[in-house]
C-alpha cells in the first residue's frame, strides 16, 4: 500500500523519540564536560615519572640511565644526571635525574620510553585537558610536575601497577632477606670464637 511504509517509519521514530527520555540506550550522548566516559586502562596521553612513598625526590624510581632519552623518536626528553647518589627501594645507591624535562608539544605518545625503561620509572598518564595559551613554556614539563605518586599509578593502571608492585615487593623481600642473612653472617662472624685450630701436623 502506498503510504504504509511511511506509517511504519513514523512509528519507529516515535518510539525512538519517546525512548530517548526513558531508555539510556536511546540517548547515547555523553554530555561532556559535565559527564565523562571513564578512560580505559590502556589509554595513554603523555608520560609521567613514578615515585614511591611520600617524598617525590627521595622515592623517585628514575635512576637517570638515559635509555628513554636515547630511544625517544622525536627526542623530547632531556635528562641531566646528578653528581651524587641516593638509595633506591633495594637500598642500593643510584644516580638520580637532577633535571628531567619532557616537551609535550613534541611528544607523540608512542610509549617507547615506557617500554624500554628497566626500572618502571616512567609510565603513561591519561590527562588530555592540557590546553594552554603559551606554546613554549606551557607545554614544557619539568620533574616537579612530571612526578606522580605510586598511588596515582595504581589508580590509572591497576593491573600494571599491581604486577609491578608485587615484583618490587618480592625483590625488596629478597634483598631484605639477603641483607639480613649477610648481616647475620657478618655478625656471627665477628662474634664467633676463633676457629679451633685443627690438628697441626
Amino acid at each position: 500500500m502506498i503510504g504504509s511504509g511511511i506509517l511504519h517509519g513514523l512509528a519507529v521514530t516515535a518510539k525512538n523519540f519517546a525512548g530517548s527520555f526513558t531508555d539510556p540506550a536511546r540517548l547515547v550522548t555523553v554530555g561532556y564536560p559535565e559527564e565523562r566516559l571513564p578512560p580505559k586502562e590502556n589509554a595513554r596521553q603523555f608520560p609521567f615519572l613514578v615515585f614511591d612513598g611520600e617524598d617525590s625526590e627521595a622515592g623517585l624510581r628514575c635512576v637517570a640511565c638515559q635509555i628513554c632519552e636515547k630511544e625517544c623518536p622525536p627526542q623530547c626528553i632531556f635528562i641531566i644526571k646528578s653528581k651524587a647518589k641516593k638509595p633506591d627501594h633495594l637500598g642500593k645507591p643510584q644516580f638520580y635525574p637532577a633535571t628531567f624535562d619532557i616537551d609535550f608539544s613534541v611528544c607523540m605518545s608512542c610509549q617507547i620510553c615506557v617500554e624500554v625503561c628497566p626500572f618502571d620509572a616512567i609510565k603513561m598518564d591519561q590527562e588530555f585537558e592540557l590546553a594552554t595559551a603559551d606554546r613554549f613554556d606551557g607545554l614544557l614539563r619539568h620533574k616537579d610536575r612530571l612526578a606522580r605518586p605510586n598511588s596515582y599509578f595504581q589508580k590509572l593502571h591497576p593491573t600494571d601497577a599491581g604486577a609491578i608492585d608485587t615484583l618490587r615487593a618480592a625483590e625488596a623481600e629478597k634483598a631484605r632477606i639477603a641483607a639480613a642473612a649477610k648481616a647475620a653472617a657478618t655478625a656471627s662472624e665477628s662474634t664467633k670464637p676463633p676457629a679451633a685450630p685443627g690438628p697441626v701436623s
Partner: protein
Amino acid sequence: MDALDAIFVTLKHLVVGWFPALLQPWISALISIGAILAIFPLLFGLTTVLERKALARIQNRPGPNRVGPAGFLQFVADGIKSLTKEDIVPRAADRVVHFLAPLVVVIPPLLAFAVLPVGRNMVALDLRETGLLFFLMVGTAVELGVFMAGWSSHNKYSLLGAMRALAQLLSYELPLLLSTVPVVMLTGSLSLVGIVEKQSVVHGGFLMGWNLFTPWGAAGAVLFFIAAIAEANRSPFDLPEAESEIVAGYFTEYSGFKFALFFLGEYLGLFAVSGLGITLFLGGWLPPFSFLAWIPSWLWFFGKLAGLMVVFIWLRGTLPRLRMDQLMRFAWQFLLPMALVNLLVAGLWHFTSPWPVALRWLLGGAVLAAPYLMFNRAFERRHPQRTYRYVS
C-alpha cells in the same frame, strides 16, 4: 470564558479608542501588523529550536542544550550570529537583484498572515470576496524571488538549485490549488472567515462540522498538507536546498542576515500554508467537539498549528529525501489525479445530502479508493517487493 476568548479583540479596541477618529483605521491596521510581526517570527524561533531538539531525540542525541533552559534560547544565539556575520556578495553577482531576492521571499508570507482568521473575530484583513485568492496569490509571488536568488548569485549550482526549486514549486502548486477547490465549492464562498463559519455546524450533538470529517475533506487535507510541505521546500521535498545535494541550492551565495531572511521566509511560508490548511480543513479556530468550546478560539488555532508543526518535524526526521524525478512523478502522476478525483467526491457528497451519513462516506470512500488501489497495483508492478538475503 468568552472574555478570555475575546481578550485580544477588546485590548485592540481599547488601544484604538485612545486615538482620534481620523487616525483610528491607521492605528487599527498598525496594531494588527505589529501583532503579526511580533507573534510569527517568535513562533519561528521557537519552532527552529523545537525542531532541532525533536530531530535530535529521534536520532538518539540531546540536541542544543547550552543556551537557556534546556537550550530553548538557541534561536536568540542563532539570530545574533546571523546579524553579526559579514555580508558577502560575489563579485560577479548582480547586486540589486541579489539584494531584493530575500525581500521577495519574506514579504509574501507575511502578507498571507493578514487573511488568516486566528480566532473568533480575529482576522487582520477580512476579504469577504477573495480571501483565499489573496492567499494563493502571495504564494505564487515567492517563485519569482526564488528565481531571482538563484540567478543573481552568478553560480551554476545556485541556478540549478533555483530551477529545481521552481519546478518543484510549480508542480506542487496544482495539487495545492485543486485540493482547496472542493472546500470553496461546498462553502460557496472564497472568504476564509466564511469557510470557518460554515464548519461550525454541530453534528450528532457533539462533533463539529470540520471539513476533515468528510471523505473529500480527509483526502483533501492529506493532499493539501503533502503539497504544502513541498511548497515550503521542506523534507522530504528539500532537494533544491539540501546541504548534501547541492550545497545550499539557490541560497548558496547568501550569508548573514540575508540567509536568515531566507530561512525566516521558508518557515513563515510553512506557518502560513499550515494556517490555511487549518482554516480550510481543520475548522480554523473551532474546537473538534462542542463541549470543548470553553477553550479560547485563538488557543485552538495555535494549538492546531503547533500540532501540525510536530507532525511536520516528525516527517522530517523519518523520511529520506525524494529525488527530483520521484518528486515530479509524485506530483503529476499521483497527487494531481487524486485531487481531480477528490473534486468528483466533493460533488457527490453535495448531491447526496439527503442520504444517511454512513452511505455517503461509503460512496466517497469507494470513489477515492478505486484510483488509489489502481495506483498501488501500478506501483507494485514497477517496484516489486524487495527480498533481502542476509549472510547468516
